[in-house]
């Protein structure tokens, strides 16, 4: 399970996501104004043509074990295959592992693998490769910290025979299954290599639907269809990832046809894609990524403001989210009320997001003892309500929200002093809990387990840097992690949602819209309705095909 | 037999453009040079003698009126291409500052050969051979080694010799020497003067020698013309000039020669200074400083007239000046 905050394309564009626990198939349809239903043209799917996608810049590395950024996971998902995978509704489906069974005490899993899976160099994939991959993840020298944390409670993972493996846990751990969907690396190749410096990290050999062909750094990565792929053969002959960092240039490349898929900013979506020729050239897809943006109020007592719940509630009341949604997202975002994905079962839909109400904020602040001074600024035992507000200088939307928020806060006598920081500096201040307030965002994995963020044990070491500790919430989280029964977990998480909505450790802001345009020549383009977008689920783009007459790249 | 003058300047006046008006620096100058003759053009600095020299080859960008004839070819108004065939070929020129008159980034040999190649259609090989012989001709030792040296590696005197070699490379009929020795020390000066004398005989060329040093004129020149404030005030053969100058200014010049004064006496010097071209006095330009000044000198403008055959002076009392003992 992996939670991460994305800052480079904060609040816009594609947000990282990987795995999901078993969840009931929800029937919410995607928001009304998108055309996600794929238009079937007559005739069976045909092979051929290329798909050109855009990554902002080079992926970190193409070694699935050591990589941690979104771009490498996009490419690796096509090159490598996994034991288990996820479908568009977020359910876990078999992949290399045909089936798996969970012991009665929910503590051990047995995976049964297919025997006909071959690596791109012809060597067949066995349980030993899976074990080798797992050993490499657990080996500290391979620097795969963010994956190793998933297997904290694993007692042992052993090979029973060529096609079966067993994983035994110390305690029953409900979000366990999804963590076994990691990309399998070839043991016979990496055995002989120095794991970090090996040349295979730049031209990987996997067992997935696409074979790596060429990577010219900061130019493009080219993958070709794997003819003897063990699963259903992909229709598209080649997939190319271009590196175009500038949004204006990438948008125009899309219009000119040099790109087939590209994310749009809310402004481009609203002002541009209304034109008719955009409509009949591209599908327009709009969905909520599994992420939310928030303002973190540091309650570690070093500042005299945010330890008090009333003050935090007042701050949430004074953020005019409705107007921001209208003017910044052009009505496309959705207000967020708690730490869970709106369509996930863990989200309690009865809790409504806080409405913008300055008078209520003034009332709460005066109850909390903050009285307006001569110059209109609030004071409490001599201390003016003036605090520093951290944001990253690379996130354009973060800046706009801060400016609007600053204006409203001034009306109720609170002075917000924005401090723009370069990403690495910002990260350092957050890590050392050296801030009063900061605006960030989380992108969630499929499993809603909030242990990493809200459990009091994570205050010193983990990601709970707002210093939030509530014994009841701790108990609920621990219970939630060990029960496998979905109905029980739903009640627990709904209770957590109510407490957090009341205590407002964060001011929960928005679920950011992810807006994608895809060239209409592709058929069977399907959008996941669990926020997995177009590519981060199986089969994703493997189903896409282009009728013979509309194929653009045919020569090679 | 009346010899045809090589160079005949009549009523030349050249003026500099400054702002929107023109300042006349040389005013109605007439001078002629006969073949093989050395004419000294003498005057204090600022009297316009260098401008006159440069105007002959139109090297200074000033407006020229009047006429300059070289063997009956009128130079003023001549097309640029034809003027180029005159420069360096028919008229050679050497300047006062030899060190800065040579291009620092080219060897002296190359700069000499350049003149030859420019005017005579001969191969580079022959041009450099001719340049080496010229260097020898002007008295530079080991000319084949010196050929490849740069101007900064040579002394002032040697540079002047190179300039002379360059000027006479194409056997010009006239050599203009603009204060050739002023920048050199005395011992080198006499060497340069003897060199000029030999070359005059050898190439039978006439020289226009521009200087402020009467001593050099006496040694080298056949005839002398004295300039003051843009005008020629006296033009006479050298011997008669020294014996009896016919113009108050030239009289003063001769008197101020160190050799002429008696022991213990204070050296004589003409009072006042040369007027600025912007503010030439009307009437005779010299009248503010002239000790024989009369009223008419201040009003009307004396013209250059024949005092005796071959002698001219621009003074109302020319010929009737009392002899100074």
């Amino acid at each position, binding site marked *: 399970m992996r939670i991460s905050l*994305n800052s480079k394309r904060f609040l816009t564009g594609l947000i990282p996501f990987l795995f999901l626990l078993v969840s009931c198939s929800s029937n919410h349809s995607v928001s009304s104004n998108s055309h996600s239903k794929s238009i079937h043209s007559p005739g069976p799917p045909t092979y051929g043509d290329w798909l050109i996608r855009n990554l902002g810049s080079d992926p970190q590395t193409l070694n699935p074990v050591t990589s941690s950024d979104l771009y490498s996971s996009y490419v690796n998902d096509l090159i490598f295959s996994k034991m288990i995978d996820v479908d568009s509704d977020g359910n876990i489906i078999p992949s290399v592992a045909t089936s798996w069974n969970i012991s009665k005490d929910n503590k051990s899993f047995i995976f049964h693998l297919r025997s006909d899976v071959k690596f791109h160099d012809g060597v067949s994939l066995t349980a030993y490769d899976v074990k080798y991959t797992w050993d490499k993840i657990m080996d500290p020298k391979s620097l795969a910290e963010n994956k190793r944390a998933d297997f904290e409670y694993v007692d042992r993972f052993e090979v029973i025979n060529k096609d079966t493996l067993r994983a035994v846990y110390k305690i029953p751990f409900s979000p366990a299954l999804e963590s076994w969907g990691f990309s399998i690396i070839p043991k016979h190749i990496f055995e002989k290599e120095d794991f970090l410096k090996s040349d295979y990290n730049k031209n990987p050999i996997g067992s997935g639907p696409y074979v790596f062909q060429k990577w010219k750094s900061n130019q493009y990565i080219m993958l070709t269809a794997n003819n003897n792929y063990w699963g259903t053969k992909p229709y598209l002959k080649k997939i190319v990832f271009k590196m175009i960092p500038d949004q204006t240039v990438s948008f*125009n490349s899309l219009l000119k046809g040099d790109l087939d898929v590209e994310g749009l900013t809310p402004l481009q979506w609203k002002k541009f894609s209304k034109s008719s020729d955009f409509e009949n050239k591209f599908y327009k897809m709009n969905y909520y990524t599994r992420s939310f943006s928030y303002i973190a109020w540091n309650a570690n007592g070093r500042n005299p403001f945010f330890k008090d719940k009333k003050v935090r509630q007042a701050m949430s009341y004074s953020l005019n989210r409705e107007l921001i949604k209208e003017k910044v997202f052009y009505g496309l975002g959705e207000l967020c009320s708690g730490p869970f994905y709106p369509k996930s079962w863990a989200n309690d839909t009865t809790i409504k997001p806080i409405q913008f109400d300055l008078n209520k904020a003034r009332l709460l602040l005066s109850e909390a003892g903050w009285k307006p001074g001569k110059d209109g600024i609030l004071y409490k035992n001599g201390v003016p309500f003036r605090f520093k507000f951290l944001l990253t200088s690379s996130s354009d939307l973060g800046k706009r929200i801060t400016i609007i928020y600053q204006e409203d806060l001034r009306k109720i006598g609170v002075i917000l002093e924005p401090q723009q920081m370069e990403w*690495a500096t910002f990260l350092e201040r957050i890590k050392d809990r050296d801030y009063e307030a900061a605006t960030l965002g989380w992108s969630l994995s499929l499993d809603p387990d909030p242990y990493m963020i809200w459990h009091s044990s994570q205050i010193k070491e983990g990601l709970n840097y707002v210093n939030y500790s509530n014994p009841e919430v701790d108990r609920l989280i621990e219970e939630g992690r060990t029960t496998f029964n979905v109905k029980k977990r739903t009640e627990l998480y709904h209770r957590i949602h109510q407490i957090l909505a009341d205590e407002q450790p964060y001011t929960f802001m928005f679920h950011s819209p992810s807006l994608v345009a895809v060239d209409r020549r592709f058929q069977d383009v399907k959008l996941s309705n669990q926020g997995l977008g177009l590519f981060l689920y199986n089969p994703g783009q493997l189903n896409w095909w282009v009728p013979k007459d509309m194929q653009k790249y045919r020569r090679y | 037999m009346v010899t045809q003058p090589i160079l005949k300047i009549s009523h030349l006046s050249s003026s500099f453009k400054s702002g929107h008006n023109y300042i006349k620096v040389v005013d109605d100058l007439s001078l002629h040079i006969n073949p093989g003759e050395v004419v000294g053009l003498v005057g204090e600095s600022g009297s316009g003698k260098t401008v006159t020299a440069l105007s002959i080859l139109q090297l200074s960008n000033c407006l020229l009126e009047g006429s300059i004839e070289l063997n009956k070819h009128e130079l003023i108004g001549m097309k640029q291409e034809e003027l180029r065939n005159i420069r360096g070929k028919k008229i050679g020129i050497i300047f006062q500052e030899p060190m800065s008159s040579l291009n620092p980034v080219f060897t002296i040999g190359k700069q000499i050969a350049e003149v030859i190649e420019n005017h005579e259609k001969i191969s580079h090989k022959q041009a450099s051979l001719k340049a080496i012989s010229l260097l020898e001709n002007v008295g530079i030792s080991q000319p084949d080694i010196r050929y490849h040296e740069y101007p900064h590696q040579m002394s002032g005197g040697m540079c002047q010799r190179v300039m002379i070699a360059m000027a006479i490379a194409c056997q010009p009929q006239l050599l203009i020497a603009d204060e050739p020795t002023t920048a050199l020390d005395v011992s080198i000066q006499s060497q340069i003067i003897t060199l000029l004398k030999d070359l005059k005989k050898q190439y039978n060329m006439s020289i226009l020698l521009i200087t402020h040093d009467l001593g050099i004129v006496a040694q080298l020149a056949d005839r002398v013309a004295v300039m003051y404030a843009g005008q020629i005030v006296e033009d006479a053969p050298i011997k008669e000039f020294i014996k009896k100058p016919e113009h108050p200014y030239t009289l003063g010049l001769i008197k101020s020669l160190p050799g002429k004064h008696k022991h213990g006496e204070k050296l004589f010097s003409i009072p006042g200074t040369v007027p600025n071209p912007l503010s030439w006095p009307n009437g005779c330009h010299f009248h503010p400083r002239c000790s024989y000044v009369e009223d008419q000198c201040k009003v009307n403008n004396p013209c250059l007239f024949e005092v005796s055959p071959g002698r001219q002076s621009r003074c109302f009392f020319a010929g009737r000046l009392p002899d100074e003992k």
Partner: protein
Amino acid sequence: MWSYILRRVLLAIPTFIGISLITFFIMHLAPGDPATMALQGDSIGKGMSAANIEQMKETLGLNDALPVQYFRWMKRLVCLDLGESLKDHRKVTEKIWEALPNTLLLNLLALIVVYIVSLPLGVFSAEKQNTFFDKSITTALFILYAIPVIWLALLLIMLFYVKLNWFPASGIQSLDSEYMRWWPWLFDRLKHMILPLVCFSYAGFAVISRYVRSSMLEVIRQDYIRTARAKGLSEHKVIYKHALSNALIPIVTLLGLELPGLLGGSVIIEQIFSWPGLGWLFFDALNSRDYTVIMGLTVFTSILVLLSTLLSDILYAVVDPRIHYE
């Protein structure tokens, strides 16, 4: 001459050490560390727990004292091994060799274009000083210089890529370039190079032509130019042979100053035109605090700077015979 060059090279070594020392310590002054950045990529993830970061620092050897780290780096440098990038563990030399030709190619072409255009312009405006020609050229060049690069890059893209579709706006070659025969391949590379080249060189015209003009004006008034005219040489020869060869001396030292710019590349132009050059590489390394890549780049830039200053001094002696070095 050779002893002078040897002396300069020996002198360059302490300078080089000085450069690497200052860069190394200021680099560690800036907050943020490669371990956190390598773990997070572009987002705060589970790995941000303090234990993981400490573990990562330990394996990368970032916890040792700074001098120890510096000497370790210097030891490897002596045997020409710049180490591996902290972000993706690829050899630093390999990463730099990939980006170097792109930046060098573009900047060299820009430098050549700038000098080819501004030299004659400078000479003309000096020759015809204060005429209409001189004034209009100068004003036109200043107008060109004043255009902000961000603005120009966008206008070029909108005009030539979006509207006229003459030149592509991103990348250094099209995807199917290796299938082409050599001639279309070359044409394709050139087409990709036009827009970034314009952005790189348009500002240089004004700067270089101003220097050439002021240097020419000074030379034209010298005595040897009058001598050259007195020799009856054509005006063309006087200006282009005698005057220009003297006026070039300060321009040569200017060339020396331009060479380091070759490596700098411009982050903005490379990001807008997705030109995989050193500017982009440096900016990425800077953001992810990739110390070894940054030090590797500094080594390259300092070698080029020291070389270019030495080269411009030697060129000075070649062009001006009055100067020679014992």
